[in-house]
Structure formats: C-alpha cells, structure tokens
C-alpha cells in the first residue's frame, strides 16, 4: 500500500508559496503528516551573475529562506503536523534527490517557473532531469497566474493517462489510496494515429475492435477505483498523445494530469518518455509523474 505520508516541497518562493502547500493539505485525509521544505541556493547561477562568490550573500539568502520556512512550519506544527527544512547551497536536482532519499518522502512537489524564456529553459531542464532521475513520484505544480483552474483541490479530479506501462500501474496503486480526497477520476488512453496505421487491416472493424479492447481494459482499472468508492470514468482518444491528454483534461475539468513517467521500451526505462516530459513542461495543468519501480539513477 502506498500512502502519501511525507511530502518534499521544493520552492524558490516566487513560484510556489504557502498557498500552494495549503492546497495539498487535503492529503492529510490520506495520511499526510510530514512536510519537508527544500530551498536550494544554486551556487553556479548565483556565481554567474556576480563577480565571484559572496559568502555574505549566501547568508542573506539562507536567512531569508529560513524566516519564510519558520513561518510555514509554525502553521503546520499548529495543525499537529511535522515539518522539516533543508536550505542548501548546491545544484538543484542532486540536492532535491539527496533530501528525498534522506527523508524517504512519498511525493516531491516542485514548481515550474513562469518567468522569462531563459528561466523557462533552465526550469524546464531541471524539471525534466528531476523526473528522469527521481524514484519518487513528482508533482509539477503550476503557478497560480498560469491558470484559473481550481488549484485549491488538486487531487479532487485527476485525469490519469495510461499507456499500460508498469509506471501507469504504479500510478493506479498510488491514486487508489486517496479515497475521500479524489472525488472523481478520469482514465484515458490515447490511441495514436501510428498505432492505427500499423494495424494489419486499417478498417472500420479493426479500429472499433481496438477501441473495444482498450475500453475493456480501462473499465477494469475503473473498477479498482470504484471498489474504493472513487467515481471513475473511462475515455478513449485518438491522435497525438500530448494534445489529446491536454484536451481530455480540459474537457473533463481535471484538477491535475497523472502520468507514468517512463517510456515503455525497456532500454529507455531510465529516461522519461517524451509525452510525460512534454506535458510536465508545457501543460496548463499540475502534473503528477509516477516513476516505475527501481528507476532511481
């Protein structure tokens, strides 16, 4: 059984604030009791923008982060929760992974920058690197100004896009423990144009047969959720995976998109698939990426 008891909340403050954390506290119903805050002071970038490295600037940044975290931790403590803090100087992704491992967290939450093009490039590659290397599920949270969607309850209406990979099966295990938090889940599978073109006889019958088989598999997953009292609906889309998943999330008013983070091919298991990467970096929805077992780098 996978419970989200401990969460790692990675912030640079400007992109993820306490309001974002508060929206995740609904997870208390599913056993969340400990939040670990992480702020990484990135020495390389810091040094790039100045002449040399200044210790006094590091102290200022550390203390600024510390004051914010004390305030946030006090709010959690007063709710009877546990809180911890890491303020470290180093490279973002390795420091996040180190903290996640030390703390044995069940979920990493990271924001995606919403600033200039250069920042987006940095941020995009950081998020991608984290998704690729993390053995822990990662929720890529979006800044409030990017969307007017109901970020107050991100787990209320997830959309799980499955390609039947092991990571997707793990995502089902992860989500099914969230009864009482998930109100309704939408399961989708995207049949690509290529899959249809590759089928032996590209007829109406074979297309409908593929739809029927996929539908049956989706319904079986729906049953897993329904048994736990979570309303689940199955949907099939045809086309480009990234576009269709985004479309489905909009059509079903999803509060987040959930994906398995690995490609299906075994040679690529250590690499995040292109669809999860594209969606995590570009979607207007928060994205929860679930890695397959033993995918730590």
């Amino acid at each position: 059984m996978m419970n989200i008891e401990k969460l790692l909340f990675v912030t640079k403050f400007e992109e993820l604030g306490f309001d974002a954390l508060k929206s995740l506290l609904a997870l208390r119903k599913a056993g969340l009791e400990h939040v670990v805050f992480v702020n990484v002071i990135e020495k390389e970038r810091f040094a790039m923008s100045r002449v040399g490295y200044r210790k006094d600037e590091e102290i200022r940044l550390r203390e600024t982060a510390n004051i914010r975290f004390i305030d946030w931790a006090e709010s959690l403590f007063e709710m009877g929760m546990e809180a911890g803090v890491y303020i470290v100087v180093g490279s973002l992704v390795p420091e996040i992974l180190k903290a996640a491992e030390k703390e044995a967290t069940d979920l990493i939450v990271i924001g995606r920058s919403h600033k200039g093009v250069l920042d987006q490039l940095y941020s995009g590659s950081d998020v991608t690197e984290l998704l690729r290397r993390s053995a822990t599920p990662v929720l890529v949270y979006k800044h409030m100004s990017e969307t007017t969607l109901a970020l107050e309850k991100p787990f209320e209406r997830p959309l799980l896009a499955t390609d039947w990979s092991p990571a997707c099966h793990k995502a089902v295990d992860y989500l099914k423990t969230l009864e009482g938090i998930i109100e309704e889940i939408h399961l989708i599978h995207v049949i690509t144009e290529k899959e249809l073109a590759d089928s032996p006889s590209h007829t109406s019958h074979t297309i409908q047969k593929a739809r029927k088989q996929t539908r049956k598999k989706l319904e079986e997953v729906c049953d897993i959720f329904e048994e736990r009292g979570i309303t689940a609906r199955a949907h099939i889309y045809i086309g480009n995976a990234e576009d269709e998943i985004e479309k489905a999330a909009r059509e079903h008013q999803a509060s987040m998109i959930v994906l398995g983070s690995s490609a299906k091919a075994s040679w690529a298991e250590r690499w995040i698939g292109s669809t999860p990467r594209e969606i995590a970096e570009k979607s207007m929805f928060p994205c929860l990426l679930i890695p397959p077992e033993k995918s730590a780098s």
Partner: protein
Amino acid sequence: MSKKVLVVDDDPDVRLFSVTVLEENGYSPIEAANGEEGLKMIKAEKPDLIILDVLMPRQSGIRLYREMKTDKALKDIPIIILSGIAKKTFLRSQKAMTEFGGKPVPEPEIYLEKPVEPEELAATIKKVMGG
C-alpha cells in the same frame, strides 16, 4: 565526573555555540543533528540534560519531545528547548497532536527562543541542573 548534555540541532553553528558554552561551564557535551539521531543517542548515552531544537530534518524536536515525555525511562530527563519556533506554536502543536489521538504531555521546563546570548544559556543550564 562532569554532567553529560546532549545538544540536538541541525545547524552546525548553533551546535558549536551550545557546545562551547557547555564546555566553558564544565559540562560534557554530545551532539546530534536531528530528532531521530537524538533519540538514539538519548537511549544510548542517557544524558543529564538535553538542549533541543524544534525545526529539524528527519524528525522534529516536537516529535522527539513527545516521544521522550511519553516514555517512562526518558520522561524525567530535563529539556531546554532552544528554537526559532515560537513557544506558543510549540504548545499549540502538542495540543493538536494530543487531539489527534496522542497522549497529553507536560510543557517543557525551559523554552528559549533563538538567538540567545551565551550568558543566558549558561545561566539557564545551571538553573535546570541545580548548579
């Protein structure tokens, strides 16, 4: 033999500060960097006093304090809380944890909010240790 004092704090600078104050006042300090490590050391070393931070990785001082005060073998070891977290927050958190099904625990003997002056810490230690 000098009395053994365990300093539990994740900040190495604060540990160094407390250890220096303790050594200058004739105590034998030992150190732990988080609540989890602290609890192991408390059980192994049976210190005469604990100086405890609240906001730490792995396990907070709030949880460690709770574990100690509900453990018959450890509950009488005096604790000085030395933290940036406000005392009223500490007390409210303990109340909330009790409401969530935990046992009620007594208030800490002494609660000092960071930062403290060395003289203040030394005087507090002496007071608690009956020196």
